[in-house]
């Protein structure tokens, strides 16, 4: 009988992976990023296309310095030096802006149809120019000027019993992790709960379930489908990991990689193990819940209704992950939730990364998640057996509640 589980898993896996929808699924998470990138590039291309025509009314040295840097400042400095004439040109909208610099004070005048002037860049340049002029006036050396320009350095550290880590990197990582894991699990659960829901609902609505159950057991169908869909998820993750690894290798010397590397180095292999293990166990648990909900469906039109409670459930850790980010993760309620199966995967990793939880606490969270998954698998099998051949007009949620009441819980072994 155990031979049937791999057969069902293989059939579920192959029939899904052959569909175009699975390959769209691989690309889909990147679609918003790609669209954003294209839009960003387009905006950047068109905005950098034109430079602002500006009249600079300033001492000759200042005017000359700005003219020399006009390309970097995205300005076109015209020949006007008379303030009144320049203002008149601005009124007529013949030019985009007038910059007046007097006694270390500057005023930038623009008109409604002006091309955009990068004021922060211009301000920074003018400040630097003013500083250089003052340094020359006070006869300071170049080293003294550089010293004056350097900002104050503040480094904060968290003192841990066992170790101390660079808190700046860990803080950033924590913020990113709580967001990323919460979003990731929510997206994965939404997509794969829908897949397993479709698989079961399709077989129920097409009435092929009786043929399948005559050839195999409900147990083989139940476990086979969960394993098949989980294998699809692992395929998707593997493709991302391989693609990500290849991208990392190819761009090892890229500037963005150098920026990201110090942050990632704050996360140890142990951290990655617990995080991935918690995500996998939690996702499997949600798949089981989705399978239970799908077994109550009569036809395809009820899938969305059946999957709503699953999505709502997966939304809770997502919201908690966001709020724990705001409360720095030291909140007692958040700490308790980090041990609860179906919730811990979104909270415990950030707790761990920020030393709010130790390794043994993370281990406990993982053990509880695995125990929860085992319970759900057994509990789900009983409900699946009970519901997979029954067709009811009742509301899905009502059916689910009725299924778990003791009186109606009598199912065959």
């Amino acid at each position: 009988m155990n031979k049937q589980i791999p057969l069902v898993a293989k059939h579920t896996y192959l029939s899904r992976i052959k569909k175009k929808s699975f390959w769209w699924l691989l690309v889909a998470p990147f679609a918003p990023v790609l669209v954003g990138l294209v839009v960003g590039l387009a905006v950047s291309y068109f905005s950098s296309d034109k430079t602002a025509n500006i009249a600079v009314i300033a001492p000759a040295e200042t005017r000359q310095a700005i003219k020399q840097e006009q390309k970097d400042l995205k300005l076109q400095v015209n020949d006007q030096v008379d303030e009144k004439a320049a203002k008149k040109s601005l009124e007529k909208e013949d030019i985009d802006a007038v910059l007046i610099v007097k006694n270390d004070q500057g005023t930038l005048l623009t008109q409604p149809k002006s091309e955009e002037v990068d004021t922060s860049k211009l301000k920074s340049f003018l400040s630097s120019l003013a500083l250089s002029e003052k340094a020359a006036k006070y006869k300071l050396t170049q080293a003294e000027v550089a010293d004056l320009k350097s900002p104050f350095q503040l480094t904060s550290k968290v003192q841990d019993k066992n170790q101390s880590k660079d808190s700046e990197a860990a803080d950033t990582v924590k913020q990113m992790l709580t967001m990323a894991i919460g979003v990731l699990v929510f997206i994965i659960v939404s997509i794969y709960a829908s897949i397993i829901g479709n698989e079961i609902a399709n077989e129920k609505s097409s009435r092929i379930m009786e043929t399948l159950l005559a050839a195999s057991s409900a147990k083989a169908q139940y476990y086979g489908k969960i394993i098949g869909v989980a294998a699809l998820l692992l395929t998707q993750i593997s493709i991302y990991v391989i693609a990500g690894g290849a991208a990392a290798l190819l761009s090892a010397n890229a500037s963005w990689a150098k920026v990201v590397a110090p942050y990632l180095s704050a996360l140890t292999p142990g951290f990655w193990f617990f995080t991935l293990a918690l995500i996998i166990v939690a996702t499997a648990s949600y798949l089981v819940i989705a399978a239970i909900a799908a077994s109550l469906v009569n036809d395809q039109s009820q899938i969305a209704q059946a999957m709503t409670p699953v999505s709502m459930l997966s939304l809770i850790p997502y919201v908690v992950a966001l709020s724990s980010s705001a409360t720095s993760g030291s909140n007692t309620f958040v700490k308790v939730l980090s041990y609860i199966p179906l919730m811990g995967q979104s909270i415990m990793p950030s707790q761990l990364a920020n030393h709010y939880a130790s390794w043994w606490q993370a281990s406990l969270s993982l053990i509880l998640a695995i125990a929860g998954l085992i319970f759900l698998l057994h509990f789900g099998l009983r409900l699946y057996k009970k519901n997979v051949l029954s067709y009811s007009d009742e509301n899905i949620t009502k059916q689910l509640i009725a299924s778990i009441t003791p009186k109606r819980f009598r199912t065959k072994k």
Partner: protein
Amino acid sequence: MITVSHLNKTFGDHQAVDDLSFSIEKGEVLGLIGQNGAGKTTTFRMILDFIAADSGAITWDGQPISEAQRSQIGFLPEERGLYQKESIEEQVLYLAALHGMDKQAAKEALNDWMNKLQVVGQASDLVQTLSKGNAQKVQMILALIFKPTFIILDEPFSGLDPVNAGIFMDTIKELKKQGAMIIFSSHNMDNVTEISDHLVMLKKGRTVLQGEVQAIRESFGRTRLYVEAPNYSAADYAGMKGVERVEQQGAGFRLYLQDEEAGHAIFDEVTKDGYIPAFSQQPPTLAEIFKTEVMAHE
């Protein structure tokens, strides 16, 4: 041998199956008949362990049916269902594998079965492109491809034209010859009469008739008489002793008798001048018995 003993099943207050017992020997066909909701499909579902019986026992050669034996039961469900977006071959091979059949053997058997059941199309055709009749044939192949020794067919002839129903009947007869134990349900009493060795008639879960088909018919007496005799009209027959009703049927008349003894006097009367083309005294048809029993228990 499959033995069902004192099987009971209730759904809430509704008694779906009430103290049902029967057995099927090797090479025997059992017809399970009854109106919709009589308990036929519930019985099949209990044999297949889709639902648990409240009480009673189902055994195979005296032992409870094991998981391994259960996967060797060929089953054609009443509600036909196939993976519409898969090819015939893909799903037949998948189901055959679940029944423990080797892929190559299943491929060869599929080809044989497609020829035998005269499926129009190729094994590579998608199920969604098949006609209803051909889809039903594919469903039949799924039930039979792994050479099951116990076969359950729930309404195998429903929706089939007479030619295809004939193909299914021939197939069932051949499986019977090969020693398979077959139980099937049908509303078509002609088919039941032709292929069943035994039958069980259910009425609201209760068994109202059970036994060999011919013996059941005979138990109602030979009260149906078909006669073709020159010079006798419907009025002549209606006036004869023991005749309840007369119907014209083709070149002759069909007479409904109060009891089979009345046939003797009618025979003497219509043959007094010698040869007549037809005189056939038979028990009621299964369809007539079915209607009688249904009415009797209303």
